[in-house]
């Protein structure tokens, strides 16, 4: 068996030491109980602190477990929280683009629509919250698969149905599309899922830069595309919207 990494073992020992009750320990206590030099202990503590696993009390200088550690086991973004943060931005996107807007998250091998803003004309439309979309052919699905490794592995295993002549079902070709998605920061679906319908989507990240969802504008292909390509203004608007929601969730600039 390969040798263990000593500094990780020491870090784990420190976390155990700080765990159990409301414990706050000074640097010398930690160093002596683990039999470490103060400098070594301090280096490890500083790294743990940067990652949020340990916090230092400003007044006493003592260390305690950090909030990040508590989040590890239970953390996921509530989709209803996501919707409430996204509401104003997605309204504005629908209004400026004149098309309908969808917010999707990964759910059971597909994309679950968690928010839908109607196209701002007077036509009758049905709220599609709760509907599922496929991962491999929709703009939302491609964005989630490109950024979220769990979605990516779901995509590998899922049945990739050819909805139209333009649907890409071949894995190698899809990997190329996902590479392009990551490089460009958005994904498109021009009649790959529904005839006559095109869509563009961009990723939403939370404060830990985890991909938590995607936002898309969807409309008739003749309105949202020019010369077979998604209109540039629309792509910019979707990316701006996704960035604004991410910012509201606490993600920094990236």
């Amino acid at each position, binding site marked *: 068996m390969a040798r263990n990494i000593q500094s990780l073992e020491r870090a784990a020992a420190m976390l155990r030491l700080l765990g159990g009750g409301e414990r706050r320990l000074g640097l010398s206590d930690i160093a002596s109980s683990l039999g470490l030099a103060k400098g070594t202990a301090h280096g490890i503590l500083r790294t743990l602190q940067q990652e949020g696993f340990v916090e230092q009390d400003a007044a006493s200088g003592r260390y305690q477990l950090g909030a990040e550690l508590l989040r590890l086991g239970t953390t996921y973004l509530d989709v209803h929280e996501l919707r409430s943060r996204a509401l104003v931005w997605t309204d*504005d996107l629908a209004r400026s683009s004149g098309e309908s807007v969808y917010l999707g998250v990964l759910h059971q091998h597909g994309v679950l629509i968690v*928010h839908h*803003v109607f196209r701002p004309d007077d036509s009758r439309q049905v709220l599609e919250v709760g509907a599922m979309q496929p991962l491999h052919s929709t703009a939302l699905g491609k964005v989630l698969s490109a950024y979220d490794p769990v979605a990516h592995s779901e995509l590998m295993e899922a049945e990739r149905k050819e909805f139209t002549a333009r649907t890409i079902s071949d894995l190698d070709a899809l990997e190329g599309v996902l590479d392009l998605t990551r490089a460009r920061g958005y994904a498109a679906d021009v009649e790959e899922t529904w005839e006559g319908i095109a869509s563009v989507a961009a990723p939403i990240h939370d404060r830990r830069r985890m991909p938590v969802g995607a936002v898309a504008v969807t409309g008739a292909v003749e309105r949202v595309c020019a010369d077979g390509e998604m209109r540039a203004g629309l792509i910019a608007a979707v990316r701006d919207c996704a960035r604004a929601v991410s910012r509201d969730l606490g993600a920094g600039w990236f």
Partner: protein
Amino acid sequence: MTDAHTAGPFIAAIDQGTTSSRCIVFDRDGRIVSVDQKEHEQIFPKPGWVEHNAAEIWTNVQEVVAGAIEKAGITRDDIKAIGITNQRETTLLWDKNSGEPVHNAIVWQDTRTDALCKELGRNVGQDRFRRETGLPLASYFAGPKARWLLDNVEGLRERAEAGDILFGTMDSWVIWNLTGGVNGGHHVTDVTNASRTLLMNLHTMEWDEKICDSIGVPRQMLPEIRSSAEVYGAVTGGKLGDILGGIPVASALGDQQAALFGQTCFSEGEAKSTYGTGTFLLMNTGEKPVNSYNGLLTTVGYRIGDEKPVYALEGSIAVTGSLVQWMRDQMGLISTAAEIETLALSVEDNGGAYFVPAFSGLFAPYWRSDARGVIAGLTRYVTKAHLARAVLEATAWQTREITDAMTKDSGVELAALKVDGGMTSNNLLMQTLSDFLDAPVVRPMVAETTCLGAAYAAGLAVGFWSTTDDLRANWRRAAEWTPNMAAEARDREYKSWLKAVERTMGWLEDEN
């Protein structure tokens, strides 16, 4: 926001609210160009008392207006008018010579005039002035608050009778300051704010001399009552005079009426409901004030210039969003307000549980101060998820009780309910609402309907928009929920809810 807007012109709206002052700049399509906001201090001198420092509020208003103009990157030439909407009923008296408030403003939630209102009811009770004003004698309304100040600030009554003191709700205070303050500021209020004082006659739209005398408010300190959409004056002097001098100040509407206007509820029978901490439902009843026999308020919806006033029925629910907050903060069952939906969706129904949040008694349509909150129908089967569902259903049933009362009073069936406010992001709640009302529930694309209403009224006054039809054309449906519940199930559930409501009454024994 997400894209570059076309060049102006624009309308600015000030929302002088309970916790903050905001300014939003709108374009011709009713889209938001920029926003600035600043909170002010909530002052609690005694239990039940709530005050605001009006000087702080005026400073904040100037800052947010300047801030919103700066963020929009525009100048005075791009702004066609400024409109105002405000927390209703909050009362201020100030010295017209110095421009200084004589006391902190008394906020609408403040209950110090409870005893005074009882006393003013004499042998008739709280409906003594209802025929003329449309309101019960309750501590929210402005008139008795003014009387309290005159009784309790030394020497104030003499100064008021000498004509040195001005009365106003926050619209009056902001307009007076905007239009020059001590240097010729216009002392006006609009019909919607005046209709919340208990001093205005709903039928004549003038101060009611008899009631003013009965409540003890000298008429010389009252502002002139104007329409909700007309030019009251121009921005003059002060910090804002430098950047916006000469811009017409052209609308004033109480916040809930502004939301009715912003939701473009211009036809009889159209209604809006704003879901915040509490909920306010207003229904347009056209050109006639409808007396309520079911515990609603009769109020002015709006009046555009010389046109006839449009009236409204109003029902409020004290506890809606605050019940979700209570589940989060007091019970610790959820960690964010949005999680109530997640928890509620983990079960199919309420498991037989009903939650009536009569935390401070029952409001419309019951008005029972002896009631207290109840969770009814508990069995071992009930989980916190069922309670989460009961919490959301409580908001929907309370809305249903108000719309039922409105239908009884007005004879008009609700065709659809337009909703706004923070809780509209709760999809399950909106669907439940539609199911319980058996009517479509519609959310507009601009969430800021209050500011938008003030902007619309100001824009109409200066010809920026020419008719209310122009405004309707701006209204966009962002989402619509349609009923999906069997009639028998709805009736059965409603019956259970009403049984639970009954269980809340008479909890306090020394009242009623």
